[in-house]
């Protein structure tokens, strides 16, 4: 965590993400987490509605996540040298989140137990962890030279 240097008016700290980007990222964070919880509920109860919930949440996460992915890609390309590593790491996490989510959407289109299974659970966990980590990086303060 960068320390905040209030005595130095030449530097300000703000989160890495634009507020709109941050709002968009909030969707996959919540939806992939919900999908994981639903998957666990399905595997414990064999009640198919849980798998259906997860399928819709994953789809929703992919739709909004696609905009996040695009934004992260553009940001990484345009990043100045100082922020390049961070932007690249953030992009990698979003790619993992979205890629695992896409495979998981197909997994959840299978019928019955095969709609989740070990692979579905693993993919939901992967997407959730990648989304949370990306959020941690994106919402943390970045040190920038203001002037």
């Amino acid at each position, binding site marked *: 965590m960068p320390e905040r240097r209030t005595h130095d008016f030449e530097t300000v700290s703000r989160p890495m993400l634009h507020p709109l980007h941050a709002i968009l990222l909030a969707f996959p964070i919540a939806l992939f987490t919900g999908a994981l919880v639903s998957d666990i509920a399905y595997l414990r109860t*064999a*009640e*198919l*509605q849980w798998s*259906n919930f997860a*399928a*819709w949440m994953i*789809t929703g996460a992919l739709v909004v996540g696609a905009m996040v992915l695009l934004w992260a890609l553009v940001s990484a390309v345009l990043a100045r040298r100082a922020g390049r590593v961070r932007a690249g790491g953030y992009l*990698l996490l979003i790619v*993992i989140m979205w*890629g*695992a989510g896409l*495979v*998981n*959407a*197909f*997994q*959840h*289109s*299978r*019928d*019955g*137990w*095969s*709609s989740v299974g070990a*692979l579905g659970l*693993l*993919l939901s966990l*992967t997407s959730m962890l990648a989304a949370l980590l990306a959020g941690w990086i994106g919402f943390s303060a970045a040190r920038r030279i203001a002037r």
Partner: protein
Amino acid sequence: MSRRLIILALAPFVLAACGPNERDLAQTGPEPQLPRQHETLVPPMKIARPAGWDGKVPTVPAGFSITPMASDLKVPRQILVLPNGDVLVAEGSGGGAPKVRPKDVIAGYIKSLGKTKVKGGDQITLLRDADGDGTAELRTVFIDGLNAPYGLAFVEGALYVANQDALLRFSYQDGQTRVAGRGEEVTRIPSQLNHHWTKSLAASADGARLYVGIGSNSNIGERGMAVEEERAVIWEIDRLTGARRTIATGIRNPTALAIEPTTSALWAVVNERDELGPQLVPDYLTSVREGAFYGWPYSYWGQNVDPRVRPQKPEMVAKAITPDYALGSHVAALGLSFATQGGFGGVFAQGAFIGEHGSWNRQDLAGYKVVFVPFAGGRPTGPPVDFVTGFLDEKGGARGRPVGVAFDPRSRTLLIADDLSNTVWRVAARAPG
């Protein structure tokens, strides 16, 4: 770590691309070869896009002729020949189960690419070919205002129609070309969701009982087993009182029923489950054994357990019986009619004509033809023989898709409903000389 995860996650895609295509498997007859299950993230799919007949006709064996008896119908599905030779055609398409997953939306769209754009007629059309030239010169709307009619039966002056939600009786006078009224309800038929909506129908040989085939409400129970009450079953109904009992269960989608003429036994063609691979599970032709459980959804072709169904029920799997005769995986048998009174003679004297609507869940198109399964002593005796083909064009498009078939012993013709080109085809033995 992450790369390994991605590779692991993508493995099923790759497997789907180079999965086994065991085309040489023998999947017809009493002992089909069953490959191991092969589930993939995306099921193998090939949709034959509608191509149109363009003046051509289906291919029939030497010594036969085929003509379009009527065209521009509104999704013709099943056919019945009345005692005076008039032909009734049930037109409609039902279903409309709610889409509960993103998959339902996408799969519904993909499958619609292989179907007609015409809206189902919800009616029965009468065709009369009095001069026997193969073309109907009289055509009337016999009954309208129906609800996705499918199964048809005629017993003692009454026509029975299986709508997607009820079995109806209409009284009939010889020569009638139009029936007024809503009909009389013999019994309701389970219609909640109607994932598989077609209600097949046949009358017992003595006419006392009617049999209704009721398909499952899902592929393998993925809508929950609560909606599968009295689904994937065959009902026996007392024709006069409407009293009914369930005579067979676990019979996934019995799309056509017929009485074998030498033994008077009830036979059915049944559509089996999807998404276990291109060569699973074979659709089948079977005699319907009283009280039998045919496995769905817990197992297929006897006691091969379906891993997708939870909770599993080993005690049900133990009860499952093996059907009589496999027709091939995903061929979608929708029509069944026995040759009666000597049939067409020769190879086609005794046996069952079967309309195969055609596959979507395999890379190589299967079905899309009418086959003949030879019988002797009331049992199938050999491999299926192609009877009517040519429903696919050279480019893999579909000119038509056969559904119901009806053999008429008086005119010695086989009628075939084609719900893609919306035609009724009439196959006749060419006069000798």
